[in-house]
């Protein structure tokens, strides 16, 4: 992120903002990129605030939506790590990876809520979750997810693959603002890295880090299948991909090479299974 320039731009337009963060800029200069990253939500929030009432509604909506997704992912992994301290249901060699995902999701929550808070924008409420997938009844198909490791990984895959689709669906809504678009893309790729890792450690024959047609390797609940709806596309932008230009490209490869987006309504509908009304 080109934070120094963002800060400069904002300071020129808004001297008060410059005063507020001036001490942080000193820190920023002495400690480099880590502090720079921490200061980013502050700068982005100020950008929304500055432009408030102009082109910000779509940006705000996209960020609030992203935060609601990150809340869920973060709580999912936090609950798992918490349960693991007594039950050790996560294999020791996999634990550092799950902890890294938790760390990343926590950072996403802090980042997005920091941006919204600095913008003075309303914060989406954090719901109460039902990770059984039972719409709050606690008896959904994922009962036992925090004690049966294979079930936990299936659900993690569902959330990560869904996260990729959700961010991808929001990217075009952020075209009006380069900085926000890059920020969303920089999270989008991290969600995809998480998804790939979870798929690899599931160790299910034929299941790869990428999405092959609509094969999920998931047996818990057929309803989960809808999360992969449309991932079996083998043409893009009207261009057929199987054996494209004479290269030996199978239907599987054609579908794997492109991930598909989801709109907000599709994602919200799926998430509602995991939220207590």
């Amino acid at each position, binding site marked *: *992120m*080109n934070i*120094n*320039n963002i800060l400069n731009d904002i300071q020129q337009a808004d001297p008060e903002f410059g005063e507020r963060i001036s001490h942080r800029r000193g820190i920023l200069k002495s400690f480099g*990129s*880590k502090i*720079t*990253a*921490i200061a980013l*939500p502050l700068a982005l929030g100020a950008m929304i605030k500055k432009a408030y009432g102009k082109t910000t509604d779509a940006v705000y909506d996209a960020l609030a939506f992203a935060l609601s997704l990150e809340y869920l992912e973060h709580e999912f992994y936090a609950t798992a790590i918490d349960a693991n301290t007594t039950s050790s249901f996560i294999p020791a*060699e*996999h634990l*550092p*990876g799950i902890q*890294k995902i938790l*760390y*990343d*999701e926590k*950072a*996403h929550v802090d*980042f997005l809520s920091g941006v919204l808070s600095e913008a003075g924008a309303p914060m989406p409420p954090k719901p109460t979750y039902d990770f059984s997938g039972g719409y709050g009844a606690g008896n959904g198909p994922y009962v036992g997810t925090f004690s049966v490791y294979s079930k936990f990984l299936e659900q993690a895959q569902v959330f990560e693959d869904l996260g990729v689709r959700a961010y*991808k669906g929001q*990217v*075009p809504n952020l*075209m009006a603002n*380069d900085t926000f*678009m*890059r*920020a969303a*893309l*920089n999270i*989008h*790729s*991290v*969600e*995809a*890295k*998480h*998804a*790939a*890792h979870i798929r*690899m450690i599931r160790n299910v024959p034929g299941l*790869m*880090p*990428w999405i092959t047609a609509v094969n999920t390797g998931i047996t818990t609940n057929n309803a989960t299948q809808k999360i992969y709806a449309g991932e079996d596309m083998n043409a*893009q*932008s009207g*261009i057929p*991909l199987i054996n*494209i*230009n004479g*290269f*030996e*490209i*199978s239907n599987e*490869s054609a579908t794997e*090479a*492109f*991930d598909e*987006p989801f709109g907000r309504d599709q994602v919200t509908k799926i998430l509602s299974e995991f939220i207590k009304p």
Partner: protein
Amino acid sequence: MKEIMQEHSGAAENVPGISRRKFLTYAGGIAGAGMLIASCSKNDDNTPAPDGTVDVGGNDKGVLNYFYALEQMQAYFYRKVCDNFYQNLSQYEYKAFQSIRDHEITHREFLKNLLGTSAIRELEFDFGSVDFISRTSVLNTARAIEDISVAAYNGGMHLFTTPSFVVATSKIASVEARHCSLIHDLLTFNNFSEGTDANGTDPNKGPAEVVAATSMYFKTKISVNNLPTT
């Protein structure tokens, strides 16, 4: 000029071996050159420069050509990997590399067809520095290529003005991130999201920085001087 400096100066912190000051000078030079060319010629015909450098062009087609060049590089590399696999390859790695190769070929040919007559020519590459029978050498190169590819999509897609190009390339970007995750895991297990910052986000890089970081693999040099900067 100011815009171009802004585009690249922050990300320069991530380039090993290039100091921030040096990088600014470098980006400034590129910006100046770009303006000079833009002011005296129409530059969307990808005419090779006298030294054989291929200009990806300007506007949305230039951005597509820039990604097309990167996909050409990746497809070439993975084809070499699969033509002569390294020793002690696992069954999983065998399947994974063949899949990645096919994904990159699909990306390359898709972008070529999307560009139609505006596509740049087939470029030549040089991976002479890679020992293809060494797992470490192949995986380290794959990691470098995937890292830069993820950063390039993250830092280049905002240059499009046509939403459908953003949608199409965002579908590719996450697949590159999936490759990247696997390669990191194969090198060091659980290192799949190595490189995220304090916000849990991946780095992004602008075209000039990406071209500089991959130039050792490009036998045919490419120029991104005429790409849009915002």
